């Protein structure tokens, strides 16, 4: 009903779909939340009394995992549009698994920090890493839940490339790329700060 209205209005126009546009704007506002966290980190670091510690090396691996997952995600989308049902499903599952592996690696990273005596409630230098990575993991979990929705579509619905399914899949792909890009931004910043 509601979406029908939107699609009617947009019929015959080359404009970007409103839902996609809304997703981009939503991502911009999520980005601002992390910009706030990271600016707070930079400002706080400049004030001194800042505990230096070894940034967990496991985050390097999680970075590789999430970059690869973005590639497999895009591969799944290409396979979907080009009519390759097997690769579509296989790559989508791979992406979901890589996403979960990423969360697991982040958890290992927190354990590594914990083992080094860097706790959530210690010097803010450690707290920032916990808070920022956990907030990112929250967004990534939201991304995984959208992939699960896409998986349900892939395995329950008969395989068929329709504009509507393409559009829905694109929303999932775009959001996944966003959380991937977000992590790269955070990772580079962590490397610079620690």
């Amino acid at each position: 009903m509601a979406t029908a209205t939107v699609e009617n209005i947009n019929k015959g126009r080359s404009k970007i779909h409103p839902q996609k546009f809304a997703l981009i704007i939503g991502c911009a506002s999520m980005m601002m939340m992390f910009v706030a966290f990271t600016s707070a980190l930079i400002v706080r670091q400049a004030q001194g009394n800042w505990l230096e510690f070894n940034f967990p090396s496991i985050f390097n691996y999680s970075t590789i995992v999430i970059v690869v997952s973005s590639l497999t995600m895009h591969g799944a989308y290409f396979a979907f549009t080009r009519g390759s049902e097997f690769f579509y499903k296989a790559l989508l599952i791979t992406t979901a698994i890589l996403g979960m592996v990423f969360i697991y690696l982040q958890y290992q990273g927190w354990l590594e920090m914990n083992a080094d005596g860097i706790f959530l409630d210690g010097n803010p230098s450690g707290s920032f890493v916990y808070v920022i990575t956990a907030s990112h993991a929250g967004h990534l979990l939201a991304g995984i839940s959208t992939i699960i929705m896409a998986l349900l579509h892939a395995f329950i619905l008969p395989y068929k490339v329709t504009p509507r399914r393409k559009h829905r899949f694109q929303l999932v792909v775009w959001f996944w790329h966003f959380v991937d890009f977000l992590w790269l931004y955070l990772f580079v910043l962590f490397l610079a700060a620690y």
Partner: protein
Amino acid sequence: MADTGTITAPQKYNEETLIEELGYDDHFHDHHHGDKYQSSFIFHYIFSMDHKMIARQFLITGMFWAVIGGLMSLVFRLQLGFPEESMAWLKPILGGWITVNEAGIGTLAPEFYYALVTMHGTIIVFFVLTAGLSGTFSNLLIPLQLGARDMASPFLNMLSYWFFFSAGVVMFLSLFLSTGPFSGGWTAYPPLSALPQASTGSGAGMTMWSFSMVLFVVSVLLGGINYITTVLNLRTKGMSLWRMPLTIWAFFVTAIIGLLSFPVLVSGILLLILDRELGTSFYLSEIFIGGSALDHVGGSPILYQHLFWFLGHPEVYIIILPAMGIVSEVLSVHARKPIFGYKAMVYSILAIAFLSFIVWAHHMFMSGVNPFISNFFVIFTLIIAVPSAVKVFNWIATLFGGNIRFTAACLFGIGFVSMFISGGLTGIFLGNSAIDVQLHDTYFVVAHFHIVMGIAAFFGMYAGVYHWFPKMYGRLMNETLGRIHFWGTLVGAYAIFWPMHYIGMAGVPRRYYSFDNFQAFAHFDMINKFITVAAIIVFALQVLFLINFFYSIWNGKKLTTKNPWKASTLEWTTPINPGHGNWPGRIPTVQRWPYDYGKGGNDYISQITPEQEWEREYDEAH
């Protein structure tokens, strides 16, 4: 060339036939939808997804909060104006917050005074002037003035209202806590907000405050995503960006500001919650409380202030820009003149929006910010005076020589300009860090921001309510009561806040519960009494407005024409009581900009009227 207007263009066309001939068919009624969720009471009035219903929900919820916030200000004004009088008569309402001694004299508990001030600020800033103003009019006008059937996502729109409602429920419940609502100021600075033991309200009250604010931010973000998407994607044919009414420009830019600044508040509050609940040290350091140092190490309370004011300053433009847009539209319609300097108005909105992000630290001149960094913020703060002055000049130029109809809506529009000038000028004082150090913690600041963003925004809101009430309810509000409401409020508002400038310059500090122990301020007691009496009268006048509003919903004069104000924008081409989808048949297409008033001798030319041949000559000649 002034006589070229003898050809009377609009009469040739009938608006009905114009929409039929030039409108485009989006097959809206070929599909079976829409009325499904309008058919029952619950989905029509409560979980509505129709933007017009959601707008009314925002407005009436905003009114509820305005009454609560206003009554709170009366209670603390009574304390300030008449500290010796007994408040025992408030005992039935305020309960334990009034302590009555053996002689029967009731006094307001000092902690509750601070809770009242805090809640008054939080409620009016966020629930009334953000949700009640931008939520109401963005929802009502964006689809109607752009020629859209509804918002981009009616479902998210409904969620936006219900998140706002839930935020309100949490905040309302916090008023009934035995320890009271949060009482550390609406800005919730740590350590008062970060330490549960700091004051009575800092425990459960603060927990509920932060939870409520997070819900509120979700509401603003969902709303904002919708507003921006609708403006950029769902405009009807011919509605280019430069043909949008200034209201839409204002709501659009407001939504962008909100979307970029509110997430920063969430970050700030999230770190605050972690400091409170999990013992992190973002804002708390080893300060001494009750003789011993806290466990926290290395936190910086200034960090919170940066994060808070990065939202907080754009927030004042989130409040004032919609009011500016409404006033631009209302003044143009009721002065029967095109808005003066349309593009300058748009560019000044954009300039204000940009500058709003780089001036936040002017709220922190007293917080120990480096004076050299302060200079940067001083300069950009003062530059805001430029686009603001452009807007004021254009409003006055729009009124100048106009055939002004002094309706209640128009009067409130003019009142807005007056308030904005009065409050804006004192902003130039306060923007200078050197003067701000003297004035910051006095009533001068209270007077400044109440006039420029409190009263002015309320005036913009009233102008909008009186102007668009016919569109909301198909009836008119009582004009006589509206004018009494305006003149009383205008005089009364100046009576409240003008004297505050004097006592502020004399150094009377704000936030004080009582001045009994300060001989230096004793001779201001008459001024304080005067302010309190004026505040009570002004509040009574707002009750008059509410009576007028609710009486008119059911008993106001019924509209006999679709376009009572003879305005040229699209919302007045819809039926008197537009159903779901706004236009019963085709969607109108837009042929011209929205401010063709008095062109070539025509009173107004609707946006749906195509350009006439005489106009080409006329435009060249003018």
